[in-house]
């Protein structure tokens, strides 16, 4: 597939440069290229998958590190974030200790009042 054909000397030179760039072995050092600029989009904050996998920051963050991009109302996304991100700081541990904490509630936005309250097991202390 080739969409562009150089029709003047400058365009020909660009094609020569880019074809030599393409032919360079992987891992070889790159030349400095005129007009090369920084990436157009800044690096996003380091938050794995937009989820709070650990206690920092302690709440779910959106891909920009804020909360404006989260679901509204928050109940809408409660289960998906809980399952996908585990939300260890906010919700019971469904995998090990409280597998049924949402057994009576399948739609969080409608039935959130039916979600169980989980307290520490006094016997295990």
């Amino acid at each position, binding site marked *: 597939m080739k969409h562009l054909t150089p029709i003047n000397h400058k365009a020909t030179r660009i094609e020569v440069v880019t074809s030599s760039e*393409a032919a360079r072995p992987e891992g070889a050092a790159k030349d400095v290229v005129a*007009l090369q600029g920084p990436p157009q989009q800044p690096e996003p904050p380091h938050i794995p998958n937009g989820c709070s996998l650990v206690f920092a920051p302690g709440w779910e963050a959106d891909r920009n590190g*804020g909360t404006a991009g989260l*679901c509204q109302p928050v109940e*809408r996304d409660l289960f998906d974030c809980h399952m996908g991100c585990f939300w260890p700081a906010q919700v019971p541990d469904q995998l090990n200790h409280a597998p049924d904490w949402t057994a009576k509630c399948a739609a969080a936005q409608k039935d959130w009042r039916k979600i169980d309250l989980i307290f520490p097991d006094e016997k295990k202390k």
Partner: protein
Amino acid sequence: MTRLVLLLLILAPAGLSAQRPPTPSGGDHLLYIGTYAGSIQIFDETTEKMAGEIKLNTGIPRSLTLSQSRSKFYVLDSTLEKIEIVDIPTRASLSTFTLSEGNKQVRIRGLQVDPLERFLILLTRSATKQIDRWEIGDIALQLYDLAQNKVTRTIPWPKGEERENVNIRFSPDGKLLYFFGDDVLILETTNFTEVDTWPLSRPIEAGLGRVNFGAVEDFNEDPGFLTGLFTTQDPIQNRRIMNLGRVNLVAKTIDLTPIGPAEGVGFALAPDRKRGYGLMQQIGRYEFWAFDVAQKKLLNRTAFEGRPRMALRVSSNGRLLYIFQAGATIDVYDAASYKHLRTVEMNADQTTNLFILPRK
């Protein structure tokens, strides 16, 4: 008596209209989606009402993987430990299995179904509980034989490089496996040895830059083809360009047409493959995009009142757009005017992708 007849005459049309299917209709298929109620719920596309449910033995589903024959779902549960095989025509659960046993928990992080349904490729990592610690195993690609109902072999990592996530596709005949990395490594599916390489890390055209090959939805495509939006970054000014492209896995070709600057746009192909729709999601800014796939051009982009976290599907007749994900609603939009028509209310939150399949 006359008053009663009059009352019936007045009320009759209202009763009929209440039962009339919503218009415009999205088609006559069935919508399947996994839910937090531990089931796959089925909605009639014509009436937009719930038409059935497949109760799962493994509880809440985390993902549904459709077989190439479109007759089975391979369901991964929310604990990532169990897989359930569901027959779609009979709406019956066929079998379940887990790789966990004793003090060893094996989490399945991803799966691919062989087109001939001889085996599954599973991406797994184990955690073994010892007396004083958990031992975390290596991440592994395993082959689960569906006839023998057990893992029969571990597939060595191509080039010995372990991956936390993999992007794997099969050729339509199931004889080749495409392992997407910097390049596409092509393995045969008997001994899983490398038989070919597709050097996608090299620019396919001088100055274009390498193609970023992310997750591409192929639901409405022919087996072995992928249509979607691909990003390239030119080596001169590092500009990230959005391209509308179609990949032919068997021929190892990709046909790209630049559309404009790269933006975060999801893509859904209409069933007729002539039209595609994009969904742009930024904080407080949501847009529908329409693509003419045949002419390879962007037709329009229109802002709409969206919400955070959305996914897009095109109805079976191409006239409606379904917005789903995160929550218990499916918003229905007109594909021509992007007008919000109505909302399908579910009784449980969605946990998987939405599949639109013909009635059997």
